[in-house]
């Protein structure tokens, strides 16, 4: 259950916390088994994502993955965002302890759902 530095740093300083009232797109995902929850909000520019915010409830990597994502998304194209895979996110987070993969799954699900619900 050792968390990476990246994960711990995001826990201590979560980025872009909150609900974006003028978001272009938004999704809320829940892991029904454990109750973890992520809300993700994205604002899109012409070609790129301008900003993202989040709320997250659950264990450490759920919070940190959501926080990490909001930073990572800034400046990415939709295509780049859509192509982010769970394993890539995990390696960006410098790994996850055994049994915690579901946090990255949930974050990616939140991302996909937010992108999907974007109607430009």
């Amino acid at each position, binding site marked *: 259950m050792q*968390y990476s530095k990246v994960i*711990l740093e995001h*826990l*201590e300083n*979560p980025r*872009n*916390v*909150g*609900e*974006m*009232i*003028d978001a272009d797109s938004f999704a*809320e995902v829940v*892991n029904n*088994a*454990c*109750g*973890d*929850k*992520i*809300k993700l*909000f994205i*604002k899109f520019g012409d070609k790129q994502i*301008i*900003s993202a*915010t*989040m*709320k*997250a*409830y*659950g*264990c*450490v990597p759920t*919070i940190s993955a959501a*926080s990490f994502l909001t930073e990572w998304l800034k400046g990415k194209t939709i295509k780049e965002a859509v192509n982010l895979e769970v394993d890539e996110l995990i390696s960006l987070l410098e790994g996850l302890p*055994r*049994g*915690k*993969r*579901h946090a990255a*799954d949930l974050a990616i699900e939140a991302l996909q759902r937010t992108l999907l619900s974007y109607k430009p």
Partner: protein
Amino acid sequence: MIETYLPSRVYLDNSASTKLAPEVLAAMLPYFTEQFGNASSIHSFGQQAKGAMDEARRQVATLIGADFNEIVFVSGGTEADNLAVRGIAENYRSKGNHIITSEFEHPAVRNTCASLEKQGFRVTYLPIYENGLVRVEDVKSAITEDTILISIMHANNEVGTIQPIREIGGLVKEIRLERKHLFFHTDAVQSVGKTPVDVKLLGVDALSLSGHKFHGPKGIGALYLRKGVRINPQVTGGRHEKERRAGTENVPAIVGLGCAAELAKENLLEFQNIALLRDYLEREITRLIPEIKFNGDKESRLPNIANISFSYIEGEALLIALDLKGLAVSTGSACSSGSTEPSPVLVAMGLSKEMVRGSIRFSFSRYTTQAEVDYVLSVLPEVVTRLRRVSPLYKQAMAIEQHKY
């Protein structure tokens, strides 16, 4: 990570394990280096080891009001529970098939009962109530002609509630006037050294204790077994421990356990003052942090445990965030492989899922200081606020941050 004015990290997870007392280590050392004989050997190396074990057995017996021969050394609290529950059940199987325990026992008892169920025993799991206590009436009405064993823990490891063992012990004695083969075991792993434990006063036939919970070594524990109560040994082999537990005796650890027992006895009265520190923590947390809930009966509980649920946030996240501040506590929530196993104790006490997940246990030892508690109070509110700010469950309007880009 930790403020420099603190001498070291703050450890408030003493119900999980405690620091070895320096006196205990000092007592153990000679048995590692010089007096390393096998206590079953008849030469002087062996006899010295044996003598030290005898002394430790006396010390442990004295702590809980037992006789010398009523103490069986085992490898820890878990093994003590296994030996008591499985050992008694197997031995008296011909007398009956029914076991009574509670919903909130430690896994060492609960899972052992579950494994006995697979072998055909019938097990009644008594409910506990909101206050974290079983009711003597429930025990009474669960007893049947077929009951051979009742196992109810003395103090609960998560909320610290002290169960009405003495009353149940009285009940058992009464019933035993008519039905000889009814035995009463209590898991006192959390209570020994923290609140008075006297096997005669409690009226128990078997009692488990574990060294590392009261500044003794890990890997050693003892089972009190009242004279006349027979068990099926669970570890078979040589004739150690009067054929109740085989295996070369762990002499240094046994010596350490004896020393820890003696220290616990000496410190027991003063230990009750830990409640003042604990109550101070609870009071200040109430003052500083809204939307919290204290778990477990306020009257009948150990002086050293505070169990608090923090709404809207998850225990593990809070625990790790506090750990980053150098503060060690524990949580009733454990989320692994995408499914949370919430503390069965808190669930049994009727807490909502969310309150179970948001629970944190602070457990003190005799080494805990006011300065350490003040340190907790200096970091906890900020960490709770931070995590609540992130939480989508946090409904308070003022707390929902809204961004505009």
